[in-house]
């Protein structure tokens, strides 16, 4: 399965490239753009990134595997991230993590069969004063209770 960037995304990569004196420095932005387009990072995606930026493939692999936010397998349409670090834990983060695991019947980094939902137990997201919190894709939901979580999850389509 080959992967090609869209014209628009190629332009975004060119824009990112201008920020830095080296092509390698644009690899993180490019991985983000690739994840936007493809949903996750595959070997083909990394090969395409290497050729677009003109850098060695292993350097793309090196960055893609170090940073945890680049998905190396398909995730759900709604990727639910639950913080269980100390400040969230003190205010019920683990109860919410348990609630979400049970609701969808999947474990950490699991995806539901219909591909709609994936869940992840994450480290501190920087919302400690508004704990407990979850993030769904790019959006934060803070000051949660079990009821509020149920309500938010109910709106996911």
């Amino acid at each position: 399965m080959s992967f090609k960037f869209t014209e628009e995304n190629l332009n975004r990569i060119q824009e990112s490239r201008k920020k830095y004196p080296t092509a390698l420095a644009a690899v993180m932005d490019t991985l983000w753009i690739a994840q936007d387009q493809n949903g996750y990072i595959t070997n083909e995606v990394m090969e395409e990134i290497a050729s677009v930026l003109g850098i060695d493939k292993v350097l793309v692999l090196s960055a893609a595997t170090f940073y945890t936010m680049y998905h190396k397998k398909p995730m759900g349409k709604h990727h639910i991230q639950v913080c269980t670090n100390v400040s969230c834990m003190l205010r019920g983060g683990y109860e919410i993590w348990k609630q979400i695991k049970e609701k969808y019947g999947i474990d950490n980094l699991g995806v539901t069969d219909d591909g709609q939902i994936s869940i992840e137990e994450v480290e501190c997201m920087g919302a400690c004063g508004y704990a407990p919190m979850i993030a769904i894709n790019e959006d934060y939901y803070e000051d949660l209770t079990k009821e509020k979580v149920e309500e938010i999850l109910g709106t996911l389509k």
Partner: protein
Amino acid sequence: MENIRIVLPEIENIHEIETYISNGGFKAAKKAFSQTPGEIIDQVKKSGLRGRGGAAFSAGLKWSFMPKSTDKPKYLCVNGDESEPGSFKDREVFEKNPHQLIEGTLITCYAIGAKTAYIYIRGEYHKWIKLMQKALDDAYAKGFVGEKMKETFGTDFYCDIYIHKGAGAYICGEESSLMNSIEGKRGYPRVKPPFPAQNGLWGNPTTINNVETIANVPKIIENGWEWYANIGVQKHPGTILYGISGHVNKPGVYELPTGILLTELIFDVAGGVPGNKKIKMVIPGGSSMPPLRGDQLEGVRMDAESLKEAGSAIGTAGVMVMDEDTDILKVLARITKFYYHESCGQCTPCREGTGWMLKTLNRMIEGNATSRDLDLLIEVANNIEGNTICALGDAAAWPVKFTIQRFRDELEQYVKPEVELPIYNKVHSMRETTVPLGVNKR
């Protein structure tokens, strides 16, 4: 209590560029550009501004390390990786006062002679990256950043500011790891020396400052260093964005002068503990800092020197409060799990030690630990501390070491008092004395 706001002023819509300008925005930059870089560094030095990212190092002194005459390009990195558990202050700056951060970046670039600045923002902060990018686009459009600055400010100096988006790695808040990350590499910390001021981004002179530190700069230039030096405590002046979380009634970020009483912060500012419960533990500066026992809080002030005296550190001023019902062991195990997850894996003591400590703590939770395990934890922590390239090792070791030191009585409940020698050893030693020599020979 003084109601002084430097970084987060109570002005409606100050995040919009028009409001920022009409409230005197970018005047400090203009004032700065009419002086020499040396004069700016001098003022920031005299103001006493100390880094807000954890080490509380003098910002002006750090800037003065940058070489004056060099052919190499110089860089500024603004550290907004903000991943320390308990810290959630920089996002307030991105959201509520981004232009002051931009103005501070301009002044800092001018002072150190940098033409390019990167604001590193953690990948999880999608929303705040967008807000910051919007602010930056507006500032570019109005000619406050980039080559148009020359016209706007009537100077020869100009600089560009870019946002670098992280992708989930706590370690990238460490300055040398942050630079590797900007270069597109794995976020591995670098061995120091050479220090960033000599050999930073792409081998060029580089300064790295925290978001909150930079956001203070315009007001120091605008109001003068004497004004700033008189706010809060003398050795650590200014205000701090205190982030309070955990068991308090009103958690959140509060901007207050340095040196306020920790108890005042918890009880008056954050509204005390729910149900008026007693406090068992407080971590005053983000999860890496040594925790304080409930009976150690009286009289402790929130500034670098006082907290050091109290046996902890200011860190990022992320205060985590835990009430009397908190399970200290579970908290410690959770903190250790974090460092185990975030260790970059370069140095053996940290990579292996964090996992070892986590396993031992989990053994305690499961009820299979012996009293030896507490000493083992301290021994492993001692062998991590000071033996790694970066401070993540220390950050993983301190909570374990100091929690055991300060909560030993409580933790002793989780361990069995003595170790019985495993039975097969005894059988083996008996055979040695009862079986005639040569019987087992083939």
